[in-house]
């Protein structure tokens, strides 16, 4: 039955959609409003946001593939637990690897790496996609959603770090620009978690005003 499907190109139109849609039209943060907790927790600086995005990408892409491979054998009655075990195992692996190779960042992320387990994007993709699709498609879907999550994280972190600490990737950009001489001051408010939500809100606003199809009809 799947003869025709198996010949499908690796990056067919359908598969490319899996990768690209989550960046915009099906963005996990701005459209599905998932994973907000970590979006506000790790975005005070670009570096941890970037590492968080990479970690989520690893967990989501690999996890999607594992679940997809196992999907025909997973007993439906314990599928949520199976998904959780896969997520938890991968998160622990990511945490161990970070501790071994990028200790400073792992210290900054501290509890948030553990919190990837509770990131609803991951569970959502396992349940909605990987349980019903083949490994390659699931892999692309995982990557796509992680990119969709990641770019929002990095944009939010960019503004928060630039305006809040006057730096980008710990480089004192504002100091180089010399704006402090004109009486410019860093806005400490940007460092606080609520500003992450406000920036996410602004992104949602921009996104929906550019693409009216995203606005819900009442």
């Amino acid at each position: 039955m799947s003869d025709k499907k198996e010949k499908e190109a690796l990056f067919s139109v359908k598969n490319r959609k899996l990768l690209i849609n989550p960046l915009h039209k099906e963005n996990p943060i701005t459209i599905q409003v998932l994973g907000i907790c970590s979006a506000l927790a790790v975005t005070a600086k670009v570096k941890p946001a970037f590492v968080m995005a990479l970690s989520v990408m690893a967990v989501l892409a690999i996890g999607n593939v594992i679940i997809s491979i196992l999907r025909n054998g997973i007993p439906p009655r314990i599928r949520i637990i199976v998904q959780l075990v896969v997520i938890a195992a991968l998160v622990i692996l990511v945490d161990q690897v970070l501790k071994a190779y990028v200790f400073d960042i792992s210290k900054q992320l501290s509890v948030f790496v553990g919190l990837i387990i509770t990131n609803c994007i991951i569970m959502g993709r396992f349940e909605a996609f990987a349980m019903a699709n083949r490994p390659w498609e699931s892999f692309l879907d995982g990557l796509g959603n992680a990119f969709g999550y990641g770019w929002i994280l990095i944009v939010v972190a960019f503004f928060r770090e630039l305006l809040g600490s006057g730096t980008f990737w710990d480089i004192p950009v504002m100091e180089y620009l010399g704006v402090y001489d004109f009486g410019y001051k860093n806005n400490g408010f940007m460092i606080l978690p609520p500003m992450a939500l406000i920036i996410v809100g602004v992104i949602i606003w921009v996104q929906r005003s550019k693409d009216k199809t995203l606005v819900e009809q009442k």
Partner: protein
Amino acid sequence: MYSNFYIFRYASVMVIIVAAILSSAAMFLKPLQDENFRIDKMKGILASANIEATTENAIELYNKNITQEIVINNKGEVVSDFVDGKFVSGDLSAFKLDLKKELYKKSKGLDYNIPLLVAESNGTKTYIIPLRGVGLWGPIWGNIALQDNFSTVIGVTFGHKGETPGLGAEIDTKNFQVQFVNKEVFKDGKFQSVKVVKGGVAILPTDMQIHGVDAISGGTITSDAVSEMLANCLENYVPFINKSK
């Protein structure tokens, strides 16, 4: 439909496989992680004495600046003395001493040892005391560097396992730690420690303000834990300090 037997078998096999993968990863990565913890500890010790170290140069700076490592017992006697890379007496390493175990022995009323690190520059000695205590969600730790009068604080560093981000976790920020500089641990020759004061040092009598710092809003339990840790760890050195005066 899957039978109950299948479900049990599936769950068991999965758990065993996952456990095997995780434990082998943990074993494989352990040496690298231990090295990171060691370097981080060095960085903390150096930072408390106002020596900024990066991951790359921490070991070098540590070996250069920390000239002496002493292990003291609870009676204030020197058990082990390690100077310029050689043991002068004893064979216990102050750096490797497990403070958690020693403080546990203390709580059980047993004899215990405590570490003291000495940094020397231009003939003046800085004494660095490692700290360990219990925070809200897990262990907290740190280092406090004192001038050679054993009272005036040069600097502190704190770390934590999992205090609440934004609240208790603020103890590891510069803003909190810088408050400790130039505070006094002794008051007229009597041990006083430095307290983290809820409501701010301004509420203390003037002569006590030198022994207190402002607490963290929303982080009262962690703040109290820091006070407790300082008092519990520093008091162990009083017999030694009295002897060396």
